[in-house]
């Protein structure tokens, strides 16, 4: 017996197989080893001591899984698959076994001062501390790679606090084999009282799992609470055609899928991208660790996008944003990929 998994979590699965068609890696391979039920069978064999935790085939499945949690909403038995995967990675990617390529990222995100410094250099939203108990969380990589997102969020949600002393929420760590640290970082971030607005689905789900759902507000929810939305965005005199890429953890972890769609419907003609709920392949560090598989997962979506001729493709998570900006550009589509906050800001500004 190893002690990697929670026995109750592992015991929940009844092997019905309802998860198979929802799993992106099973769809790619048709191999049950790369399905949620198959990985749970593997975890059980590891827990029972039949298969070594570091068996190459076991390591491969721990890494091949996107962690998108699309299997959770379709699971009638309620298996907390995301938590089981975190358990597996926690054990498999410990210490020296952590993939080299992501070590600097994890180290960077755990250094609060460094993130702040680089983030300010990149000119993310300005720090402000009005009298309110609602704060806007600045994502660690979002500050650096996509500083416009927090600027747009701050403009479109005036009155929220953006405190100086905030670090990373630790989602990155929890998903990449450092759960204890990831949970500690989430608790630290949520140290001050009040609600936390997040523009990143991955962070929202992680924070909610650690500090409670009632403390976390997704940007789209905050916007709907806030009152009337700006009018439609016009492109060539007609209402813009706007699609959405769901954030997996926002949708599968927190069950938020309607709110961003409602916001977009006010800003233009909402077009449901077929497979909008399916992972775009970014999946946190996945696109760095398994670039080829990441692009294979995305391929069917790119085919849909090229025929939809959207003006805008909206994302609600920085990982998806980076992935889709890169791939949409590579495919030379005339669709602009931006965060929901950036689209709302554009609508507020009105026609230029």
């Amino acid at each position: 017996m190893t002690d990697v998994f929670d026995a109750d979590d592992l015991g929940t699965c009844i092997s019905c197989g309802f998860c198979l068609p929802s799993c992106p890696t099973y769809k790619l391979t048709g191999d049950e080893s790369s399905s949620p039920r198959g990985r749970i069978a593997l975890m059980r064999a590891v827990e029972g001591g039949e298969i070594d935790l570091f068996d190459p085939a076991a390591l491969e499945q721990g890494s091949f899984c996107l962690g998108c949690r699309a299997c959770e909403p379709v699971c009638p038995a309620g298996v907390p698959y995301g938590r089981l995967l975190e358990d597996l990675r926690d054990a498999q990617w410990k210490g020296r076994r952590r993939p080299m390529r992501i070590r600097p990222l994890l180290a960077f995100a755990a250094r609060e001062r460094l993130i702040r410094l680089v983030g300010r250099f990149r000119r993310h939203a300005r720090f402000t501390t009005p009298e309110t108990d609602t704060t806007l969380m600045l994502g660690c990589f979002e500050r650096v790679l996509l500083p416009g997102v927090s600027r747009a969020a701050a403009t479109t949600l005036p009155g929220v606090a953006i405190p100086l002393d905030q670090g990373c929420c630790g989602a990155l760590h929890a998903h990449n084999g450092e759960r204890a640290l990831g949970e500690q970082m989430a608790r630290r971030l949520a140290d001050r009282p009040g609600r936390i607005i997040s523009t990143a689905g991955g962070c929202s789900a992680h924070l909610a799992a650690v500090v409670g759902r009632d403390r976390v507000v997704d940007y789209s929810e905050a916007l709907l609470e806030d009152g009337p939305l700006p009018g439609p965005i016009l492109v060539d005199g007609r209402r813009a055609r706007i699609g959405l890429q769901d954030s997996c953890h926002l949708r599968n972890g927190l069950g938020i899928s309607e709110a961003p769609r409602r916001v977009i419907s006010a800003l233009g003609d909402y077009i449901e991208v077929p497979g909008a709920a399916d992972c775009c392949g970014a999946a946190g560090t996945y696109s760095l660790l398994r670039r080829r598989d990441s692009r294979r997962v995305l391929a069917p979506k790119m085919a849909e996008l090229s025929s939809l001729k959207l003006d805008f493709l909206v994302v609600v998570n920085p990982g998806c944003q980076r992935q889709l900006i890169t791939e949409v550009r590579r495919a030379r589509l005339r669709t602009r990929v931006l965060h929901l906050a950036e689209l709302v800001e554009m609508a507020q500004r009105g026609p230029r």
Partner: protein
Amino acid sequence: MRTLSGTKAISADLSKIVGSVNVEVRPAALVPYRTDATFGFAGLPTAVVRPGSAQEVSRILAWANQRSIPVVPRGAGSSLAAGAVPVQGGIVLALTRMNRILSIDPVDLIAVVEPGVTTQALAAAVREHGLHYPPDPGSKRVSTLGGNVATNAGGLHGLKYGNTGGYVLGLQAVLADGQIIRAGGRLLKDVAGYDLVHLLTGSEGTLAVLTELTLALRPAPAASGTGLAYFPDLESASKAVGGVIAAGILPATLEFLDARCIRAVEAHARLGLDTAAGALLLFGDDGSPDEVARTLRTMAGLMPDHGATSVQVATAAAESEALLAARRCALPALARSGGATILEDVGVPRSRLPDLVHRINTIAEAHEVTIATFGHAGDGNTHPTGCFDPADLAGRERVDAAFAEVFQAAIDLGGTITGEHGVGAAKLPYLSAQLGAAQTALQARIKKTFDPAGILNPGKVTR
């Protein structure tokens, strides 16, 4: 036989046929293929091989036949009778790569598919042509058509539309020695020779491996609707089923759930079901909008005569679909309420349904076990489900003992030990009680004729 050199040789041989990426012999990658959706059955295969064509299947079978290596065909592994468990080891033949819909013909009303296509994928594809593939097994989102045909799968619309076998017009199959045959074809009428199409349908991979299926389609009904009625207990709900048929209606849906199932489904799906009710009967029909409205009205009208305490008719399609989805998730919802489940599928003639329900409850009480019952009330096929703590061995034995009596009760009432899941390994000990000695022996001779070396899914259906 699981020596390293043996495994290496098997891997090398199979790789020559399908390519090394489609052969797996590493134990950690074989573990997922030990089980299917049945509780308590497992067997580790020596290898998993994923062929891409009938020719590859043929070469694999010829190879295995020469060496007397068991071959266990597998679709999505959603069997509830341990039909896909390699109980005697050997090779798992995973057919999921063969997942192309080859053609859909709106004039002949036919679809030709490879066995790895999911039931749902075909249903969605033919709907785009205004057509309808009626078989609707509870696991249709995941189950494959190859598995559906191999088990002659039933489902939610058996009363009006029959089961999978009624839609199989022709098939291509690979025999144990690797020969490829075609039986039947694209015709509704075809009586040339013994009906091998319907011998292989439901043969659970023990006689041949299905590699292509020619399936009958129907024009899509223009409308459908669903309603539900609550009853004080399952027996009165089953009597209402007789009332519907007596009124001259053959509805597309007549499903019932007992109180335990209602509570489990409601806890999972939150549809606003009445968790205080003793039983629930889902009734529905499809056809022209007028027809659907009329039959729903008639059915809703006669429910109170049979003791229904309240009746509702879903007005929107989404609402209707939610009700059916609730029924589909009954089993996993039961599992969610904690513990393990063993789901059976005994069937009796419709008129004996109230008797069966009564007997199940009496047996459960006598053995002090929890059996929740739901199922396809319209066609007499029920799913008594034993719920127990997997760690409690004595409890598990009581469930087994109770089910042995439930099977005998079904047989006594002129019914069957398995209406739609198949015999697999799980029902094999009880089969001869239903078939009798002469038929059991004849079935064994049929098996021997098709598969003299006994390589095809051994330990299932027949000894």
